[in-house]
């Protein structure tokens, strides 16, 4: 009994410690954002590294996701012979839910893991301490540029990803079900509202914030050499995935 209580307590304290650390980091980042105090060159480099380098992987994922959604809804649509609803079904699922979540998971794998690995390596090789010794603030030099880059690029890449997902869906609808792209497009235009797109984009923005904070936090709290870097990357992607789904639930609940 005492052991079980101890285990629950340890797990709870550990989680509270991590969440608290993340909140403190978020507070620090926000404090340096108004008015913006961040290294411009470093921000520019990070925007390129985060955005342009993730472009291919986001496009490929989005194409496949659009295609999968059409395949999955296609069967129901064919059953009820309601081909006019295909664009609605696939488009709704993609724009509002599956698109941002899948792009977010991909992004957390590509960018979040990379970010944690980089910061973790700097931490264990004492480069962060060296920055401090040179009177360079690690928050403004390392964290804020990454935060800005990840949040803005997640949002922009979701816009592109939504478009490519719909294109992939249209191509699959034509190839597999013989629904021509005009009908697919008309169905999207008829049944979907701007709110559906916006809903997905707001989610993407929040996912970006979550990925940025989680990956920076786990990177900066790395200890213990090469093994430690591996462990903190693992923790970072797991925490990002959980926070993506929890935030998704909360946002879905808040904005119907």
């Amino acid at each position: 009994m005492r052991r079980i209580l101890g285990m629950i307590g340890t797990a709870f304290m550990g989680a509270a410690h991590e969440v608290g650390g993340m909140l403190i980091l978020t507070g620090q980042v926000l404090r340096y954002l108004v008015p913006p105090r961040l290294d411009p060159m470093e921000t520019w480099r990070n925007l390129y590294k985060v955005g342009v380098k993730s472009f291919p992987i986001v496009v490929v994922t989005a194409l496949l996701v659009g295609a999968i959604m059409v395949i999955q809804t296609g069967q129901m649509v064919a059953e009820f012979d309601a081909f006019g609803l295909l664009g609605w079904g696939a488009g709704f699922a993609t724009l509002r839910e599956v698109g941002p979540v899948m792009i977010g998971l991909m992004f957390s794998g590509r960018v979040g893991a990379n970010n944690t690995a980089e910061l973790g390596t700097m931490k264990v090789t004492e480069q962060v301490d060296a920055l401090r010794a040179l009177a360079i603030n690690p928050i403004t030099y390392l964290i804020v540029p990454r935060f800005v880059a990840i949040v803005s690029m997640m949002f922009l890449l979701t816009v592109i990803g939504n478009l490519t997902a719909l294109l992939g869906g249209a191509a699959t609808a034509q190839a597999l079900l013989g629904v021509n792209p005009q009908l697919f497009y008309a169905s999207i235009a008829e049944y979907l509202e701007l709110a559906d797109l916006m809903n997905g984009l707001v989610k993407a923005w929040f996912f970006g914030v979550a990925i940025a904070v989680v990956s920076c936090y786990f990177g900066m709290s790395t200890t213990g050499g090469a093994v430690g870097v591996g462990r903190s990357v693992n923790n970072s992607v797991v925490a990002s995935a959980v926070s993506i789904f929890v935030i998704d639930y909360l946002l879905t609940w808040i904005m119907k």
Partner: protein
Amino acid sequence: MTEASARPRFGTRLLAAIGEPIVLPGREVVAIARVLWLTIYYAFADRIRWREVLRQCYEIGNRSVFFISVVLGFLGMILIYQSGFQAQRIVGDLQLLGALYVQMLFREFAPTITALMLATRVGTGIAAEIGSMVVTEQVDALRMSNAEPVQYLVVPRFIATVLMTVVLSCVSLVVAYFAGMFAGAAFFDINPRTFFNPTLLIWGDLYIFLMKSFAYGIAIPVIAAEAGLSAFGGSEGVGWATTKSVVNASLAITFLDFLLSGVGYVFFFS
């Protein structure tokens, strides 16, 4: 030699820009196929250390149950919430929601989301573990004592991950189903008895479910092991290996999902 003449000519750079996106992923696929082949070869060539497999099953399975349950529970509630509101708006009838939901869980969400979560939880773990062994030269030490690294390190993890992916997919199916049932009852007043409606399920759904989780279970450990084994450099190399593992595994899962969904559509559902 000046700076300008050291730079390759425009034609060369153009060809390089076209070739790079083909050659680099191609090389990656070849490397992964090689590890897959070696793993299968050693799994049959020599006897398997079942004690180690069991330990890995605990490591991979038991320690992911909580994580998978949390994620899939939230996912189930989100799916019902979203599709319920849409169905109310367009179709105006929630009778079939439960039947369609369980079908979608079998075909798509239970195996795929579980696998994506395992790719992040288990895949990065394997890559980080093997990667740190590589950069600290423990793998070279294994080779020196005449133990094949793939056989010693990868085969037990491979068998354990394949088994546990199928098992955890079943767990996540159940969790997501009950979470959806709860959401249906809480938000739309759907009676759980109306919600429980397996009439639309066919055997094809079960085949697709098993095929998908099995395929993902093979892909995750092999891709992670390849990423770990190809690590080099110090702690930076381990970081790169884990990143590579999660990216490659997620892409492979999405691609396999597309492929198997297409196969399922053509063979079972049309």
